Every structure is written in structure tokens, then in C-alpha cells.
């Protein structure tokens, strides 16, 4: 245990806490969706798959975004050691996000859709999100004041916030007939925006992780080093130009595909560095593994390696031709959003929410088992999707015209293991999340004056 403090729940923490509720909600709908894979027509009357999928996907993406924002705010304020420019603006931002996300999820229940990936909600509901994001940028810039002489994570937060706004607005260009009147044009711009948007929230999350890593290791030099900036610029370059790997089979401009292919290959530099640093990463891990937040960072390292290998392969058009439209894409999407984003965000949540109103001692075992259960089951989950994808790919490429329904029957064993592993995964994650949420809720309910302890988690 560290020093006692009387820290109250702050707005940045409320972002993270809201995120934790969203992920639990999203996990439950993931399980429902997986059941619908196994039992055709399950809940068809009132909760059909076209409702369940966006309920799942939007909840977990909101978890990623709102928690990334909460983490970014927490660390900006810690880093600058200054007061926030406007505590009103950040509160409005939180309220706009939370209420809009709730409205969106309710609209899905009632079958009211915007009907486009990944934002399947009616476009009007995008307005409060844009407004909240503009407030975020203003508040951020005014708080940080200058963009000069900052470590790499500040650069990442800055580019992440600005590019998110740009790409989010870009993803609504379809409302103009100029873009929408031709599907190929429309899909080109759609995937341009989404591809870069994912890169933008990753900037926020990776920025927070580097900050957190520095804090744990006590080494402030890395975030100002050349290698940190080289990796940052590689990431930014990919954010801007690699999105074409989503649309290799779309009959769009060929140069888009060539540019994306070449740019995606620069990620080999990141893989190379991971391999080069393997030994020192491992010894660092052994030293710090007793800390919960570090444990999640270490897990994310392994998932980064596995998913980056898969991603680089899928960015080669000749391989993408086989993997595209199969569950290998889903393995990639969920592999990265769970293995990398969720693990990193949990590291951040563990670090920021560990001031306690309850003693964490009785929960330590639960949290540790949850961690291992989640990671092992995620591996099975990931492999099941990859195998299902390989089989679908064979079907897609085969000259025999086997009916779609028959192919799905062939994939069924892997959907079973997907469902089981997914349910165990959700259980593991909830075991990890539960004590954090319980503690924070008690902190909020706690009548003032009670001392809050900081537990070493």
C-alpha cells in the first residue's frame, strides 16, 4: 500500500468507468451473437442479428473510444501538472458522449439504424459526438498550451484527437449524393475514413501506454528518444495511407491499392523492432509482472506481435484475396480490439482507478485468474476464427458451387469453439473488471470525509 489520499472521483475517471460499463454490455451481446451463429433464428422476432451485431460492435467501440479519452485526459493532466483549462467543457464532453451512446444503443433495440459499418446508428446522432469532440480538442489545446518540446505521447494524443475528428466527419460524406451515387466511390471514401479512424484511436491508446510504461519503469528518456519518434511517424504514415488494404477487391483506383500495399509493409519495421527487443522486454516483464497494470501491458505486447504478423500478411493483396470476406478478418478485428486495445485500456484503468474505497486484497486472486482465463481463451477464440476463415476461403475459391448454407454447416465445429471460448473470455474479462467497478461505485457513493487508500495493484 502507498500513501493515503483523499482523492475524489474525477471527470477523467468517469470516462473510464463509463467505458467499463459499456464493455460489459458489449460482451453480453457478443455472446448472444455467437449463439445466433449456432442456433439459426434465435431471438429472430425481437432481437435479430442485425440488432445484436451493432449492439455488440458499437458498445465495444465506444468502450475503446471513451476509455481512451479518459486515459488521455488523466495523463495530460498528470503530465502538465496544471489544472485543466475548463472543467465545464470536459463535463459537457462526458455528458454528450454518455447520453449519445445510450441513445444509440436504445435506437438499435428499436431497430432504428443508419445502416452503415461501423457506425450503424442514424446520422443525426453523430452531431453530439462531433460537438463533444470539438470541445475535447479545444480543451486539450488550451490545457497543453504549446506543441513544442513534448515527449512522443503528447504528439500522439494531439494527432489522435485531430485525426479522429477529421475521419469521423469524412465518414459522413456519403450523405452527399456526389459521393453516394456510385457504390465504388462511396465505399472507397467509407473505408478511407474508417481505416484512418482506427489509427486515430490507436494513437490515443498507444500514447497513454507509453506514458504508463514510463511511469512504471521510471525511465523518462524513451519517450523523447529517436526510436520512439521513428515508431510514431511510422504509425502516422500508416494511419494516413494504409487504409486501402480494406478494399483490395473493390474496383477502385489501382494506385490506392499500390500505395497501401507499400505503406503497410513499413510495419515490418515495427515487427523487426519487437523481435530485436525480445530479450530486454522479457526481463523487464519479469521484474514488473507483479503489478496488474503492467501485466496487461505485457499481454498486449504478445498480442501486438501475433496480430501484426497476421495484419502484414493480410496487407499483401495476393493473400488478402484469400482472407477477405472470411472470419480471418474478424479474427484480425477482434484480435486487435481485444488483445491490444482492451488489454492496454485495462492497464490504464487499473492504474488510474486503483485508489480504493474497498480493500482489493480479497479480490487479487479473482483478478489474477481473470487475467489468465481471458488471455488463454482469447487465443482459442482467435484460432477458431482463423480456422473458420480458412475453410470459408477454400469454399470461396473452390470451383464447385457448394451452397452457402452447406459451407456454414462445415464451419459449425469452429463456431462452437468460438462461442465457448468467447463466453469464457467474457467471464475472464468481467472477473477483472468487477472489483474495479465495484470499488469506483462505492467511491462515488462514499459519503465525503472518508479516507481513500491507494492500493498497489
Amino acid at each position: 500500500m502507498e500513501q493515503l489520499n483523499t482523492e475524489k472521483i474525477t471527470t477523467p475517471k468517469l470516462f473510464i468507468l463509463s467505458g467499463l460499463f459499456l464493455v460489459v454490455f458489449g460482451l453480453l451481446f457478443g455472446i448472444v451473437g455467437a449463439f445466433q451463429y449456432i442456433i439459426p433464428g434465435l431471438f429472430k422476432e425481437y432481437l435479430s442479428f442485425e440488432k445484436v451485431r451493432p449492439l455488440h460492435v458499437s458498445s465495444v467501440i465506444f468502450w475503446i473510444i471513451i476509455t481512451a479519452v479518459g486515459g488521455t485526459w488523466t495523463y495530460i493532466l498528470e503530465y502538465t501538472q496544471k489544472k485543466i483549462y475548463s472543467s465545464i467543457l470536459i463535463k459537457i464532453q462526458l455528458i454528450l458522449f454518455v447520453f449519445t451512446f445510450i441513445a444509440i444503443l436504445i435506437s438499435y433495440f428499436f431497430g432504428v439504424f443508419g445502416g452503415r459499418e461501423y457506425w450503424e446508428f442514424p446520422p443525426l446522432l453523430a452531431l453530439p459526438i462531433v460537438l463533444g469532440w470539438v470541445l475535447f480538442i479545444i480543451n486539450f489545446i488550451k490545457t497543453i498550451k504549446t506543441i513544442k518540446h513534448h515527449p512522443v505521447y503528447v504528439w500522439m494524443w494531439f494527432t489522435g484527437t485531430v485525426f479522429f475528428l477529421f475521419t469521423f466527419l469524412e465518414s459522413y460524406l456519403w450523405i452527399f449524393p456526389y459521393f453516394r451515387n456510385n457504390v465504388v466511390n462511396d465505399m472507397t471514401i467509407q473505408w478511407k475514413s474508417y481505416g484512418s479512424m482506427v489509427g486515430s484511436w490507436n494513437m490515443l491508446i498507444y500514447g497513454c501506454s507509453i506514458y504508463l510504461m514510463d511511469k512504471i519503469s521510471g525511465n523518462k528518456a524513451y519517450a523523447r528518444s529517436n526510436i520512439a519518434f521513428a515508431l510514431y511517424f511510422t504509425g502516422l504514415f500508416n494511419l494516413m495511407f494504409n487504409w486501402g488494404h480494406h478494399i483490395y477487391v473493390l474496383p477502385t483506383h489501382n494506385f490506392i491499392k499500390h500505395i497501401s500495399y507499400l505503406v503497410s509493409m513499413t510495419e515490418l519495421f515495427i515487427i523487426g523492432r519487437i523481435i530485436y527487443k525480445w530479450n530486454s522486454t522479457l526481463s523487464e516483464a519479469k521484474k514488473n509482472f507483479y503489478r496488474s497494470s503492467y501485466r496487461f501491458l505485457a499481454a498486449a505486447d504478445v498480442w501486438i506481435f501475433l496480430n501484426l504478423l497476421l495484419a502484414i500478411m493480410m496487407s499483401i493483396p495476393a493473400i488478402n484475396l484469400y482472407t477477405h470476406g472470411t472470419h480471418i478478418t474478424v479474427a484480425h478485428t477482434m484480435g486487435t480490439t481485444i488483445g491490444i486495445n482492451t488489454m492496454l485500456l485495462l492497464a490504464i484503468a487499473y492504474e488510474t482507478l486503483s485508489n480504493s474505497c474497498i480493500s482489493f486484497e480479497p479480490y487479487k486472486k479473482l483478478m489474477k485468474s481473470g487475467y489468465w482465463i481471458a488471455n488463454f481463451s482469447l487465443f482459442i477464440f482467435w484460432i477458431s476464427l482463423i480456422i473458420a476463415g480458412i475453410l470459408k476461403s477454400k469454399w470461396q475459391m473452390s470451383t464447385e458451387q457448394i451452397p452457402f448454407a452447406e459451407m456454414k454447416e462445415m464451419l459449425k465445429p469452429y463456431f462452437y469453439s468460438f462461442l465457448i471460448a468467447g463466453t469464457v473470455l467474457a467471464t475472464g474479462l468481467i472477473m477483472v473488471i468487477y472489483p474495479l467497478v465495484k470499488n469506483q461505485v462505492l467511491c462515488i457513493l462514499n459519503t465525503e470525509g472518508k479516507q481513500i487508500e491507494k492500493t498497489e495493484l
Partner: protein
Amino acid sequence: MLSEKQKLVLIIFLTIAFLSYSVYLYTFLPYKQRKISEQCVKGMDLWQKYNCNACHQVYGLGGYLGPDLTNVYSKRGPEYIAAFLQSGTQIMPKFNFSEDEIKSLLAFLEMMDKSGKADPRTYKINKDGTIEY
């Protein structure tokens, strides 16, 4: 060490490149605009309103519970599709479309079909890893 100035130059350069690329793409979209029929626009709206994309893919993008529909129009023909839409299936809900709505969806699927082929078997693979249609 990269100096502060070098970093700023680099980020400004990248941002300008990105913005130019974006503006170029908005201006020179892959296909010249054709005006499309009102029926087809209605079909697009219905496609989005009923979130068909959550279960179906076009060009391999979308949800995975149902089949890719990019070229379903030429593969199955309008009567077959209309019958499917009227009856629903074990998994696909019965949406209770009117005659006109079915016509609109068919117009949309026909337009989609004409936009290109989404079948991976129709591509040729080159030695450098690129693919050709």
C-alpha cells in the same frame, strides 16, 4: 536526436501529403457521377434502414452471417431475390416489404451488380503480390 524543427517539418509535410491525397480523391473519384434513378436511391435507403449490411457483405465487407450480395442480382435473378425478400428465411427476418419497396431493393442490387465483380476467383495474382482484375 531529431530536433524539434525537424519533427515539425516532418509532421507538416505528412499532413499536407495526407490532405492533398484526400482532396485529390474527393475530386477524382474512381467513377464519374452518373445520376441514378430515384428507385435506386430508395433501395439504398431501405438497405440502410433495415441494416442488411449487418448480415450481408458487399465486396466482402459487412457482417458474416449471410452471403455476399454484390453479384446476387446476376447470379440469382430478380424473381428469386423478390421471393426471398417476401418470405424471409429461418435466419433472415420477414420484413413485410411492399411491392414498390421490393422493386427499389432490386434496383439497388442491380446497380450493385453492375459496379463490378466481388468473386475472388476472377482475379489474377502477380508475382509481386499484387492482384489484377
